[in-house]
């Protein structure tokens, strides 16, 4: 007999926050380790091998510990309050993204009716943090990086929003659970062609929003040192930069899984596959998305800022508008319409 536990709203909220604060860092560590290893093996290296004994599994713990001991330097001419707040403004929205991603049919922190809208809105708050970091650092490299980042966000938010809008049209709902339930066949396969194009559009936009190569101009190491984070040290650097970046990547992988790969459902609706629990499907698909992002990331050189803007405004955004039209036509005149 399991005793019935009733919690009031505040206790539920605390519990949910606790889960988020426990799960997200763990996932981030796993993904960060994968990042090290995928990069190393793509480059004919072994990557970290010693920390923790087995294939260097504890490298990120060791790294984190190292950063914990670093001196927290705030430049003399920096705007102290803004400078020290910026990492939090970058990091907290990333955590909030995880609130609405359905890991299984019932395993979701909060199934909002406007889940998709919430994701897109919260996802871009981090850019303010990046601007804050760049402006308050009193460093020219940081400033250039922050401005590049802001320009990039405006240009690439649109393709993401438009491709997500097409998904919402197909599913007929903004709730993420409803979107997953609407995918008998994942959207990437059905509607044929349109779904794949939308998915690619989403990946491109996500890479630009995450500042991953080939769109990593805001933090381009060979040009701007670390862009907006040039002046940060210690834990602020870790939370504002590494941790937020990896967690953001996982969040986008999860969103991509939910919107295009059928979330917690099997990749094709076939009896034997449905035996596998949804949580495993979700994580396998998310891992695949992360690998895809890393693969692209380590294979390409970096674009130039003006080329990136041209690519967004002259190609991606017209394409995404055309895809919305195509999606509408599919809904009206396609097999289901």
């Amino acid at each position, binding site marked *: 007999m399991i005793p019935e536990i009733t919690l009031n709203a505040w206790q539920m909220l605390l519990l949910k926050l606790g889960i988020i604060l426990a799960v997200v860092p763990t996932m981030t560590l796993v993904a960060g380790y994968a990042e090290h290893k995928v*990069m190393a093996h*793509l*480059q*004919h*290296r072994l990557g970290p091998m010693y920390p923790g004994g087995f294939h260097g599994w504890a490298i990120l713990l060791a790294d984190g510990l190292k950063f914990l001991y670093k001196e927290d330097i705030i430049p003399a001419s920096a705007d102290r309050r803004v400078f020290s707040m910026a990492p939090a403004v970058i990091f907290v929205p990333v955590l909030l993204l995880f609130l609405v991603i359905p890991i299984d049919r019932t395993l979701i922190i909060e199934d909002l009716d406007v889940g998709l809208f919430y994701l897109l809105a919260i996802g871009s708050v981090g850019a303010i943090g990046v601007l804050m970091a760049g402006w308050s650092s009193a460093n*020219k*490299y940081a400033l*250039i990086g922050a401005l590049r980042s802001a320009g990039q966000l405006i240009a690439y938010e649109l393709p993401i929003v438009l491709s997500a809008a097409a998904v919402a049209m197909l599913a007929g709902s903004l709730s993420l659970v409803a979107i997953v339930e609407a995918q008998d066949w994942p959207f990437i396969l059905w509607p044929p062609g349109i779904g794949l194009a939308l998915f690619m559009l989403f990946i491109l936009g996500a890479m630009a929003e995450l500042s991953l*190569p*080939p769109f*990593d*101009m805001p933090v*381009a*190491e*060979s*040009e701007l*040192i670390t862009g907006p984070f040039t002046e940060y040290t210690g834990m602020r650097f870790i939370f504002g930069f590494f941790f937020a970046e990896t967690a953001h990547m996982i969040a986008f992988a999860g969103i991509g899984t939910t919107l295009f790969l059928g979330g917690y459902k099997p990749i094709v609706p076939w009896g034997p596959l449905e035996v596998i629990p949804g949580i495993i499907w979700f994580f396998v698909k998310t891992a695949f998305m992360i690998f895809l992002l890393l693969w692209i990331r*380590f*294979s*390409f*050189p*970096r*674009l*130039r*800022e*003006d*080329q990136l803007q041209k690519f967004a405004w002259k190609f991606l955004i017209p394409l995404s508008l055309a895809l919305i039209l195509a999606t509408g036509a599919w809904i009206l005149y396609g097999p289901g319409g």
Partner: protein
Amino acid sequence: MALDEKRVTSQTPVHDPEEIAKIVSGGNLITEQMVLNVGPQHPATHGVFRLLATIDGEVLVNAEPIIGYMHRGYEKLVEARDYRQITNLISRMDWLSGFNNELPMNLALEEMMEIEVPERAQYLRVAMLEMNRILNHLMFFASFGAELGAITPTFFAFREREDIQLAMEMATGGRMHFGYMRPGGIREDVPRGFIRQALKGVRQVIDRLSQYEDLLVGNEIFKQRTIDVGVLEKEIAYNYGVSGPIARGSGITFDVRKDEPYLVYDKFDFEVQSAPNGDCFDRFWVLVREVVESAKIVEQALGDLPSGPVLGKVPRVIQPPEGEVYIRTENPLGELGFYLISDGDRRPYRMKIRTPSYNNVSVLPRVLKGQMVADMIAILGSFFFVLGDIDR
């Protein structure tokens, strides 16, 4: 792979900040110039190169290289040293091509003292000079990719370097500063297994280079970033005394190895690579092609290596007669010249060193003007300079 197959796009090479402001706001936008101090410590400068850049938005209005941060006074140091000590000292000048640096002074001594160099020594010298050239070029292959944000090719190039590096290590005991050349030949004969190891490394480079080239040069983003960026015209290259792969990337087909053959270079079959456009892409393309040419020379030199001694008849004390001589050779980065004046002493009276990177970098302000900050990094990377070579 022909050069033309790889080129496709064309874009506006030079940006005018006022023009941009006009397009953006009809001329109402007031922009301010900002001085950006790139270096001396900056990830893209391979050392302590300093560039004082005046930027307007992201466009460079003016860029001035400030050199001398690493000056070590080699020309003065050598005046207080014995010639054999100098060999080891100048090996450190351009640290990526130590063996090539050791050559011109020894050639100068051999000419002044009329020392005969045995044939085996000449062949081994050529083979190892070219191996050193491959090492150097692969390093720049790696760093250019890294500067454009492609980190994976970097590690591929380093992996290929390792086999050749190992062969050099077998013979000389060093990985960067070899100190292997002597007036009259080389220090000692190469050990057993050297030839096999060297040929293995060189053949591997030829085998795999085309793959790496496709990964980087065949990439659309790479083309967008390099084609028509940082154009160095042939005339300007001539006037500034630019040499090496950078000059050959601007259509100048000059190579000391071919035009004034020294050692036994005239016995080998190789081509001088050049490309007509003078942009980052062409400079990089020439660099990659030169690796293949060098590999061909190494194969030929080690293939019919004559037997015999490796050190000619050299007097116990190296004391060239009074006189002067200028020797120039083709260093991996360009023309390296040594002007040696001797007053009959054991030490040089004066030794003027003309290093390639110094002249090559002096043309940077001309090329950088009107470029984007991101392109500045690509251009700096495509100028293949070694800091130690600029500031002797």
